[in-house]
């Protein structure tokens, strides 16, 4: 198994706060690597540095054998980094299908076309429809995003990421607010999806994390305090103290 994504010793500070403190992390093909940690541990900052929204102060990010540290977010997406967001990032006035077609348009890249209607573009529509079918949202194709439910938006985010045929997925709390049935369905879906492209998963839902992850890294105060298989993590005393212990009591 090769490393698709390789984060090498990145650090990022905001004033005196070390949001990322010498973090190294990798994602191998075929795996789900879960990143867990209490609120404020720096998970979103880390994801942002991988996706290109933030530049690390030091260290580097490598993706598909290339140093992408200095690339902007769109360039990283074009290389095959598919992303879903903690708070849904969709075009609210567009329909479900249009959002998905837009995803396909982005990875196709040929935007400077001013004449032919994009919603009659067969190749793009095909990619979009099959992505919607896979996440089970095909029946809502014609709805405006502003009118679909929170859970459906989460599904749509995954569908848009699918249209990009990514080499790796970065998923920031895809289960958030899904409810029990929804997160169970998504768990099953992600388990199949990892064969297609590995997933770096930030998630608070511990049932989902332990059911899905091949490896887990625990981030506390900007540092990875433990990394290993779910069994290792469950029995790691540091983790129990810093994170799981608190969860267990509540």
């Amino acid at each position, binding site marked *: 198994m090769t490393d698709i994504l390789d984060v090498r010793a990145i650090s990022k500070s905001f004033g005196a706060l070390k949001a990322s403190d010498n973090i190294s992390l990798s994602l191998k093909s075929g795996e789900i690597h879960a990143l867990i940690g209490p609120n404020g541990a720096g998970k979103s900052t880390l994801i942002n540095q991988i996706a290109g929204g933030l530049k690390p102060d030091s260290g580097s990010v490598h993706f598909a054998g290339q140093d992408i540290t200095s690339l902007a977010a769109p360039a990283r997406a074009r290389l095959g980094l598919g*992303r879903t967001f903690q708070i849904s990032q969709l075009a609210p006035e567009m329909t479900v299908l249009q959002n998905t077609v837009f995803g396909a348009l982005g990875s196709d890249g040929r935007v400077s*076309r001013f004449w032919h209607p*994009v919603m009659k573009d067969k190749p793009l529509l095909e990619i979009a429809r099959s992505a919607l079918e896979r996440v089970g949202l095909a029946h809502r194709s014609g709805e405006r995003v*502003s009118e679909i439910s929170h859970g459906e938006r989460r599904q749509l985010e995954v569908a848009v990421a699918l249209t990009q045929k990514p080499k790796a997925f970065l998923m920031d709390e895809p289960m958030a607010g899904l409810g029990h049935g929804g997160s169970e369905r998504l768990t099953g879906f992600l388990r199949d999806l990892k064969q297609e492209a590995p997933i770096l998963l930030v998630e608070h839902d511990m049932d989902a994390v332990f059911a899905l992850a091949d490896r887990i890294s625990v981030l506390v105060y900007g540092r990875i305090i433990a990394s290993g298989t779910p069994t290792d993590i469950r029995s790691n005393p540091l983790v129990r103290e810093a994170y799981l212990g608190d969860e267990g009591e509540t």
Partner: protein
Amino acid sequence: MIKETDLNTAIWLLFLGVPLAAWQMGEIYTITLATKICVLALAGVGLNIALGLGGMVSLGHAAFFGIGGYAMGILASHAQSYAPIMETPFLIEGTKSMPVIWVLAIIMSGIAALAIGALSLRTNGAYFIMITLAFGQMIYFFAISWPAYGGEDGLSIYVRNDFPGLNTLVPIQFFALCFAILTAVIFLSSRLEHSRFGMALQATRQNETRTQAVGLTPYKIRLIAFVISGMICGLAGAVSADLNRFVSPTMLSWHTSGEIMIFVILGGTGRLFAPLVGAAIYIMLEHFLGGVSDYWQIFLGLLLLMVVLFAPGGVIGLLTKREAAHD
């Protein structure tokens, strides 16, 4: 409620029908008013691409409108005086041919939009509004202090320019020409709105993060749209100058930018026919209330306030009862 496409067809027919009826009845002034509406609406169609589709609140579009106007004024004034624009290193002469003037107006305003857009689009929000305003005013004051082309007094062109096969001095013929241009540009703008580029442009307005996440760079998309928008305003400026047979720095002032924006907002930001409806309301108010009071713009202000507060989709949004534009 009325479907937007039906409403658009009705508006289009009305704007064709009224001047034709006026022509039959010999009401020349009505034809001139309709021509004025067409020309201003054309500028609005240009701004609507930046503002309505791309969400770029530009207060500098008078610059492109005025550059188009001055392109016409400079070319025609040289043709009028038989003095070449330059002799060295090669000879450039003025022209009275509308198609040639239009092409040059589009090119010049496109270049200006590229330069202004490339710098302005690095900012956003209030800063973008202010920087476009600043560029617009720079060009305005440049025109004022440029004595070769009339400075503050502007340039008068004695005879309207020529268009092959038409007598442009006949009001109904000139109206037909302006209406044809407006129709063609609205059609192009509709194609653009539904094209790949149009989708990307609207996505940058609705969600920048999403646009980047699918691998597109919002800056590039906005810049292309800004240039297209500026070129249409440039064309409108050239035609407007021909309608008035006069260009002056007023075309370049920020009031003009504001007026163009008012057309778009009154009609319904982002709607295909909004600029035409907005310009019509504006010109009619000016015509009917302007006769009653010099302060007619108070009523315009009230109307604008009502639209912004109670009908964010503008007049077209009100009639079609759908707040958000675009399907």
